[in-house]
């Protein structure tokens, strides 16, 4: 057993570089930090900051085109430049990793039990029965339901949260001194995320392990971290205790980062814009949507009996976790999915059962921004063409005039006019998402459907994007169905909020009413699970939760 304050991981002058086409590009530069037993160090940064590469490089897990330098000591033993055999002795046993996406990080052709047993038997001389017993214990420890049977399940037979629990069980298999958790909760729903964070904290306390937490989510950091290291472009921007960083950030970047994080319940008031006698822009009545049986996949009802109305100039936030059917609603609202029963009206016109021709007419009044900016723009088309396509197909403009309109739209979303000829891969994620908005707004729609438009963006980019959206909305007065899993984001934008679970609308109402006084237990759980980027608040909430239990 390691003593409470022993330094488990000591990193000095540590750098990671990647070889690309004859040039070494640094991913992490000159890092210095120490993690002690029972302590959580969080490395925070946005995409491209090098936080992930640096954590992989600690145990030489990077591809061969990467090189590391400096010193990494685990329990005083140097890890960089040590023999492969020695490295293997430490991997898994002293230093265990938890990866972001357990679906791909677990081998799909072996049961989780096999993979845990393999880890155990790789480091300890124990028989298979014993190891299996230990695996079941571990699965019990990580609170996987029914560990006796789960041990023989394949990864694809478990849910996302269960998979991550199995992943953690595997990481804990050899009682490691150091746990490196690389975005352990990012792929999970908020409620599940809360459970996993809870689990990690408990385990850390129980096992007295050192934890290196890599994340972009300030809420998670606030919940778990003792110390924080902020990274940007490979450089360490600032280090300090959680309290220091959250409450007294020194570096402007840290301040900016914290400012960009949306905080639930701190948004400006959004008075209702809804006029009683106005015709709703979007009206869903008893909507049922079913994915039909395709080949061997049975039919699946994604949306059940849902009614929702959006009035002109109003932003309605549709919130739910994965599988709740919120995206399905959004796609059905512009006629991308067939309606099983019920009705969808846009400006009073029925979409359900509309012909292709009618649909294209109705669609001129709508626009949609998709979730993944990487996938929503055709990589083979210059973005100007993507933006101009709706205008061209609507026959509103072509040639010179079209180009001018496209440039105007680009300007509107604060992108240089010359970007018209660029390809999607040349733009950053935030820029691509702006292009997505420009395209959605090309026909000046009455209704904008935004399907998780910020979930792929870094917080600072997200903040600017949300500002832009608010400005545009204020200017153009379109109604908006804003679909998101992130209550804090919805909080900033929405006049009204609707909450979905398992295809059903569990609660809808004015923003403050939902956030401050939720009625439905699911909504309550959802709100309680949202991590708040403030260690003190988080601690209070945690204690409140514990008290409640």
């Amino acid at each position: 057993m390691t003593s409470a304050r022993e330094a488990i991981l000591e990193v000095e002058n540590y750098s990671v570089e990647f070889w690309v086409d004859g040039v070494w590009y640094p991913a992490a530069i000159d890092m210095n930090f120490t993690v002690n037993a029972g302590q959580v160090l969080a490395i925070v940064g946005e995409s491209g900051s090098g936080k992930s590469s640096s954590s992989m490089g600690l145990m030489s897990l990077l591809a061969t085109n990467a090189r590391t330098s400096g010193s990494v000591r685990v329990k005083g033993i140097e890890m960089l430049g040590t023999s492969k055999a020695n490295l293997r002795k430490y991997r898994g046993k002293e230093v265990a990793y938890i990866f972001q996406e357990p679906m791909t990080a677990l081998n799909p052709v072996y049961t989780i039990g096999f993979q845990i047993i393999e880890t155990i038997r790789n480091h300890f001389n124990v028989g298979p029965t014993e190891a299996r017993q230990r695996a079941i214990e571990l699965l019990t420890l990580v609170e996987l339901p029914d560990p006796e049977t789960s041990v023989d399940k394949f990864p694809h037979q478990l849910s996302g949260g269960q998979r991550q629990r199995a992943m953690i069980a595997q990481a804990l298999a050899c009682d490691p001194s150091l746990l490196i958790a690389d975005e352990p909760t990012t792929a999970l729903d908020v409620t599940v995320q809360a459970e996993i964070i809870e689990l990690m904290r408990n385990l850390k306390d129980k096992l007295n392990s050192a934890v290196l937490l890599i994340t972009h989510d300030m809420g998670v950091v606030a919940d778990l971290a003792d110390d924080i290291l902020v990274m940007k472009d490979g450089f360490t921007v600032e280090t300090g205790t959680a309290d220091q960083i959250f409450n007294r950030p020194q570096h402007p970047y840290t301040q900016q980062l914290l400012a960009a994080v949306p905080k639930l319940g701190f948004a400006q008031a959004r008075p209702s814009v809804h006029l009683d006698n106005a015709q709703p822009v979007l009206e869903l009545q008893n909507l049922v949507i079913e994915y039909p049986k395709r080949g061997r996949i049975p039919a699946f009802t994604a949306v059940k009996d849902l009614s929702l109305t959006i009035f002109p100039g109003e932003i309605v936030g549709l919130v739910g976790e994965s599988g709740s059917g919120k995206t399905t609603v959004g796609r059905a609202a512009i006629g991308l999915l067939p309606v099983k029963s019920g009705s969808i009206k846009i400006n009073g016109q029925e979409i359900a059962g509309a012909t292709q021709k009618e649909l294209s007419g109705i669609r001129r009044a709508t626009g949609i921004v998709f979730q993944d900016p990487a996938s929503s723009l055709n990589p083979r088309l210059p973005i100007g063409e993507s933006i101009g396509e709706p205008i061209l197909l609507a026959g509103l403009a072509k040639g010179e005039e079209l180009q001018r309109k496209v440039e105007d739209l680009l300007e509107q979303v604060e992108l240089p006019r010359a970007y018209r000829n660029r390809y999607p891969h040349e733009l950053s994620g935030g820029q691509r998402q702006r292009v997505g908005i420009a395209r959605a707004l090309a026909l000046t729609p009455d209704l904008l459907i935004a399907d998780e438009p910020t979930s792929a963006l870094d917080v600072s980019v997200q903040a600017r994007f949300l500002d832009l959206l608010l400005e545009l909305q204020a200017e153009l007065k379109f109604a908006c169905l804003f679909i998101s899993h992130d209550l804090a984001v919805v909080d900033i934008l929405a006049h009204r909020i609707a909450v979905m679970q398992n295809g059903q609308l569990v609660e809808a109402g004015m923003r403050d009413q939902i956030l401050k006084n939720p009625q439905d237990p699911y909504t309550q759980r959802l709100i309680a699970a949202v991590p708040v980027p403030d260690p003190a608040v988080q601690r209070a909430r945690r204690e409140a939760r514990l008290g409640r239990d």
Partner: protein
Amino acid sequence: MFSYIARRIGTALLILFGSSFIVYNLEALSGDPIAELRTSAARNRDFLIAYYTRQLELDVPPPLRYFHWLQGIAGIFTGHPNFGKARDGLSVYGEIAAAIPVTVRLVLGATILAILLGITVGVITAIRQYSRLDYSMTFISFLMFSLPIFWVAVLLKQYMAIEFNNFLASGQIGIEWLLISSAVVGVIVAGLVSGDRRRVITVFSGSFIAAALMLLIVNWTNWILNPGMGVLGVGVVVGGIGVGISTIVVGFENKRVLWATLTVVAATIAAYFPVNYWWSSSDMNALNLLWPVLALVAVAVAAAFAFTRVDRGPAIRVTVITSVFAGLFLIIDRLFQTWSIYLNTDGINMRPIPTFGEANVRLSSDNFWILFEDGLLHVVLPTIALTLISFAGYVRYSRASLLEVMNMDYIRTARAKGLSERTVIVRHALRNAMIPLTTLMAFDFAGILGGAIITESVFGWHGMGTLFRNAISSQDLNLLMGVFAITSFLAVMANLVADLMYSALDPRIRVR
């Protein structure tokens, strides 16, 4: 599952119905079955023309004739299929039944060899991606991809049969060949290691000298004319293989498995004389080859049980594979011993490597080993030719597949768990990389019966390919359709088997 298979077979039958109809009519349109007769000077030509018109139903339009044929085939459901008669008067059923084993003999070995070698080389090149070895194997596999087999076959026959047989007159390797072969060995071994230039040169010269010495010893002992391994040779080779396999599968550290493997080697050495004595008896037959191998396998299982308490699975795997190799080398050693006798028999006259056919028709011996050796030697050239060609595909596919898998997250997980690189590759990467390859294998095996048309023609074998070709050139519809029915059925079935194998190997996919 059952209903799934039934449904698939139903669809397959419909497809076969359609394609057989098309093929029948295409072929019926493609020529004049009695062309020869039209310019024949036979006195009773008119009678013969009338005879064939009646016999081949030439007066019935082909689409209608097809249904006559189909009627016969449909007998398969009642257990009395009628494939009709070929134009040479023999039953199509009989001809196909005779041709299938021939083709299987021709292609099976080559296919298995191509799969084993191809996947091995593919895996090695993937692991050593962008090494000299990888580059040269890539080039070689592309070259093989581009080789016309009919062209290669002629070269093979000239240089590996005729010239080799000429060489056997002396059996002494000339100095130029000695140097060239040693250099080739050196280059290959040097290609396998990685490292700086000095290391490569050292390895090259070492292996060059070793190979040259080996060849000198071969010359000195006249090994080529009187080969043999002896009890010592068998022991050393099998021992090496056993240790190698146990290192790959469980790692050298696992002493228990190593001891079990060495027990198998010891058993092989102990069995050497009794088995050879038994095999020398005059009533030797093919089945007797099997018993010693089975006995060794039994020893292997027992040894694995005796030496290991836990993890018997891998241990048994190691020892059993070793024991199979041991049996194989006992047989190879015995074949080596037979070599000089074989060379000196009347039918061989020191020209052992044949250029055509399935067996030496002149061989009058009824000695099992002579006949066995003869059969094997006849397979040599076609097997080399076929292996050369299909080997390349497996190299490319397995390399690409493994590289793809090696980029997967779970490989990183496996490394992060502290698993050795061997375990990461063998257990985690290979297993996943093999899944897409099963489709390729299933189709290759299905292609066995229909595929080797050119090879059979070049090497004068009388298998399905020759039947097919003869049927086309002599307008023998019944024969053609018989062959077609078999091969296309297999092709469609391969599709099904590939899907079933896929779902067996990948737990994510379940057929319903």
